[in-house]
């Protein structure tokens, strides 16, 4: 059972890696934002599976932290891209 869960985790990591390759090679800076989004949900899914499959304590808390950090990073990147248009900012 644990092996099945770990294999699922590996498949998700693989899917994330493939998606990133496309997204980061895209012509647009926006694609970088989508990378953060993809990484967030993929990473959390992987961590949840690892938490359930192995006996390492605290992995659930890492997933919790990641659930907060992914939107934080995405919002920050959006802000930086946005202020390219507006004249506000440093």
């Amino acid at each position, binding site marked *: *059972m644990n092996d*099945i*869960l770990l294999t*699922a985790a590996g*498949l*998700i990591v693989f*899917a*994330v890696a*493939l*998606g990133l390759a*496309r*997204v980061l090679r*895209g012509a*647009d*800076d*926006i*694609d970088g*934002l*989508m990378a953060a*989004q*993809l990484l*967030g*949900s*993929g990473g*959390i*899914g992987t961590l*949840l*599976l690892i938490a*359930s499959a192995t006996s390492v304590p605290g992995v*659930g808390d890492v*997933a*919790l932290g990641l*659930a*907060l950090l*992914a*939107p934080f990073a*995405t*919002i920050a990147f*959006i802000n930086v*891209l*946005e202020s390219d*248009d507006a004249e506000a900012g440093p």
Partner: protein
Amino acid sequence: MSTAIDAFTIVCVAAGVFFYVAGTVGLLRFPDSPSRLHALTKADNLGLGLVALGLLPREPSVLGALKIVVIWALVMLSGASTAQLIGRVLRRGRR
């Protein structure tokens, strides 16, 4: 009884992984950024939701199960909001 739970977990996790892979395929194949965004957010949210659902019965304590639900709710909240934001940035036009 526990084999039924195991079967439930395997089915949910497998479905979740399927949706993650489907989301990636959409990312790779869709022609423009808004549709890629659509594939990304819908498929990944569904994928995570199914994986979380499948892992719920395996948690030894109610608190652990609650943690998974909180993570799920956070991802849904932030996923929906950031998808809106990315969509707006896309609509305003980027270089």
